[in-house]
């Protein structure tokens, strides 16, 4: 064989091998999903079952389980108007992983006593984050004492979008305000992330 032909053959075979390897690698990567979802796999368990017909032991792939996480958020609250019968609030959010930073948007109805020294906010909340959003409802009671407003309440996360699709959970809200317009809240959320999510 001519030396040139032999080298051409070698190159062709080598490139085919590289292309096949690349193709397999890319297919494997696609099948395993996105790289960032490492936490979901940590909860995956491998089960061992006995088959009744053969009596041999097999190890089938276990279904990936959802992951439960407790995430704490600090919210710097700003009420767009003094809360009388309805309230519309925004907050700068700083949450733990995997939520990160964002903006919270609350809209609620206000119920209070005649002196407006205690009452509650009941409404909807949306937590907009870099990788997606969470939606839910909340109920917070407030009490005015010593020139300070104290907030205590609960939150329920009903759905999510983007990287937080199908995330659900609940949590607590605590916080204070000196003027009823700006405030500092702490939200502790117990969230359930579906299999394969962040």
């Amino acid at each position, binding site marked *: 064989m001519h030396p040139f032909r032999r080298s051409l053959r070698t190159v062709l075979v080598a490139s085919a091998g590289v292309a096949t390897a690349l193709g397999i690698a890319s297919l494997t990567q696609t099948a395993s999903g996105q790289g960032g979802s490492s936490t979901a796999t940590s909860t995956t368990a491998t089960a061992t079952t006995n088959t009744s017909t053969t009596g041999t032991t097999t190890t089938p792939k276990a279904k990936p389980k959802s992951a439960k996480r407790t995430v704490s958020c600090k919210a710097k609250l700003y009420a*767009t108007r003094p809360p009388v019968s309805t309230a519309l609030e925004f907050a700068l959010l700083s949450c733990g992983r995997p939520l990160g930073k964002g903006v919270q948007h609350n809209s609620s109805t206000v119920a209070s006593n005649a002196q407006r020294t205690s009452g509650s906010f009941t409404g909807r909340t949306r937590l907009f984050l*870099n990788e997606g959003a969470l939606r839910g409802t909340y109920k917070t009671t407030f009490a005015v004492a010593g020139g300070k407003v104290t907030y205590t309440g609960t939150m329920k996360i009903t759905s999510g979008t983007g990287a937080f699709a199908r995330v659900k959970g609940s949590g607590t809200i605590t916080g204070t305000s000196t003027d009823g317009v700006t405030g500092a809240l702490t939200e502790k959320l117990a969230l359930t992330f579906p299999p394969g999510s962040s």
Partner: protein
Amino acid sequence: MMHLGCGTRAAVIVGLSIVVAVGAGAPAAAATARKTRNVSCALTLFATIEQPAPTAANFGSARCSRPFGTGVQRDSSKTTRTSLTAGRFTGPFKLFFDRGTIRGTFRIRFVTMLSAAYQITGVIYQGTLKITGGTAAYRRVRGTGTIAGTSPDAVRTDLAYRMKLTGVPPLRRGPR
């Protein structure tokens, strides 16, 4: 004619077909990235710093055309006054949506209208914006746009964005 073994020939065919298959997806992605889309947004912003002041900041809700949908904006800016009643805001902003965020900078001129008793009766805004980046589904979004709007009291402001954007992903159908 060069002779290749049966196994070798199969490997070559498999390799080339995979290369062709992978390459076919690239032009579609590139076309999406290059395509310019007109996106408009209607925003209602609330000032968190009372004016006049050397800085300004707003929170607000946004309603944008597809694929963005509803979201919220957070912005902050420096105020430069050119007269008692006019000036400009320059600073960064970030729009948060269900599938990600877009961020950029804006420059808005404002003219304040005063009554005979020097009460604010309205503010007119006009300016430009530049989208410099994004996150999640909108990480490749870039572009420019115009801003126009009014405010009755310099606290609540209604703005309209008209943007020309590239890198906008197609609208995803089905459950989110």
